[in-house]
């Protein structure tokens, strides 16, 4: 049965929608700090999106409606995902048993429309990027689902709100090794799905080496704005999964919990910035290996949990 929580959930949803682009600012600032630069303003992503929304878009004559559909459906998918996302241990706006499968499917649908839009342009570079993106995510998705399975098994709950609502210090005490393995797997998935550095360099300007960036090369104006905002929301969703597990306290009182959760998200962004500053990109051939490793970690966690 579908459960709708109205108590303050709208406010928490709004917080997610507003704060998501801030993560990119924090990542960029962390990288700038490592490189000894001043870096862009923390709110740069907001400025970019606002600028793009005011612009017109030039659309190639070879493209069809599929191309237009990509950014819009993509943004709709992650925005719907935010509805399902529990926040700081509080239940999500909408929750029902099996909603984590829906969330995974929404992310997959977003990828599908993005890839279709990229293929629709007929550019060979975009086709290459699309093929790589699909390859990586085909390996990242099992890791995500198996991680959810571990959480479901540990908490005996089937909706994300119940799962993350029950993750507590006691569970950490009972099954710390499994939880750490799941966190490692989720962090790898987080980096891969958001096209961050060991998998893909968001700042690269060579079409041959781009993965995610090359797929959106032909989008401009509001479409690109939707894509940027969509990727910010996607990062928020996947990050929230991690932070919800790491911070196992909740419902002491609403505001400190929410504050702690947001701090956790920002810290996660700092961690991503550090990873990007100290690591180089993996060779393309090694990327699937790391992702298979992530699946391995998640499966290992599941086995430990079933065996114990």
């Amino acid at each position, binding site marked *: 049965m579908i459960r709708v929580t109205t108590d303050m959930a709208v406010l928490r949803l709004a917080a997610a929608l507003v704060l998501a682009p801030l993560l990119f600012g924090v990542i960029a600032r962390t990288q700038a700090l490592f490189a000894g630069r001043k870096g862009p303003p923390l709110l740069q992503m907001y400025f970019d999106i606002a600028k793009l929304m005011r612009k017109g878009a030039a659309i190639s004559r070879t493209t069809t409606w599929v191309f237009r559909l990509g950014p819009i459906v993509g943004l709709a998918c992650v925005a719907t995902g935010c509805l399902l996302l529990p926040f700081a241990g509080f239940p999500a706006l909408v929750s029902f048993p099996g909603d984590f499968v829906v969330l995974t499917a929404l992310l997959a649908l977003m990828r599908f429309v993005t890839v279709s839009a990229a293929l629709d342009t007929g550019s060979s570079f975009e086709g290459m990027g699309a093929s790589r993106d699909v390859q990586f995510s085909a390996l990242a998705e099992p890791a995500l689902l198996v991680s959810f399975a571990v959480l479901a098994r540990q908490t005996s709950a089937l909706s994300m709100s119940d799962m993350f609502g029950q993750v507590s210090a006691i569970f950490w*005490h*009972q*099954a*710390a*090794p499994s939880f750490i*393995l799941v966190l490692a797997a989720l962090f790898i998935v987080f980096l891969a799905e958001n096209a961050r550095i060991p998998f893909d360099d968001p700042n690269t300007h060579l079409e041959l080496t781009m993965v995610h960036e090359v797929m959106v090369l032909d989008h401009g104006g509001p479409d690109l704005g939707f894509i940027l905002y969509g990727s910010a929301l996607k990062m928020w969703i996947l990050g929230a999964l991690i932070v919800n597990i790491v911070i196992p306290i909740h419902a002491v009182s609403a505001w400190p919990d929410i504050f702690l959760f947001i701090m956790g998200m920002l810290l996660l962004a700092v961690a991503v910035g550090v990873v990007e500053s100290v690591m180089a990109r993996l060779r393309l051939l090694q990327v*699937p*290996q790391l992702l*298979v*490793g992530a699946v*391995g*970690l998640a*499966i*290992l966690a599941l*086995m*430990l949990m*079933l*065996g*114990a």
Partner: protein
Amino acid sequence: MAFPMDSLLVCVVLIDLALLAMSRLVTLVRIAALQGVLISALALYVGGANPASILTATASLVLKGIVFPFMLMRAMREASINREVEPYIGLNLSIVIGLALLALSLWLGSKLPLPVPVAATLIVPVALFTILAGLFLIVGRLKALTQIVGYLVLENGIYTFGLAISHQSPWIVELGILLDVFVAVFIMGVMTYQINREFDHIDTNQLTDLKD
């Protein structure tokens, strides 16, 4: 669940999986050494603070953590071996097979009747998995050096299994086994060098082609 014990055991499993996934020989040797160190720590944890346990743990720490990697590195340098692990079975497939082996060992560990209570429920499956991973390294990799590493991992597994079931095994036996392993690795290191000098490679696959 004893938290430090389980964490050590999970680290041992992770190292087994990493060994199956590594593509560089140097890293392979280093990770195997790390596993030796972890298992020595485990021995100390299980054995408690008595002189015999401290002695065996220290001996195993020195041998597996320092002496073996040193000897293997030297063998590698002298035989000027190419730095790549050459797998028969691809690295990704190796991880998948490793996970299947892990599932098998967890199942076996739950079925295996043991004469004495074990120190932790996880320790028998982990020992079995380490043994199987060592075997897999021996059969699934081309080079003589990776086979030595596989042998070491196999021995680590057997040692862990010993820890699980015999709290009061005579320490002299443990030391004897360590000495055997030391001699084995020493001889295998020399052999690797000899194979390399005779045939300009350490590809064990081609040893079957020898005539008279």
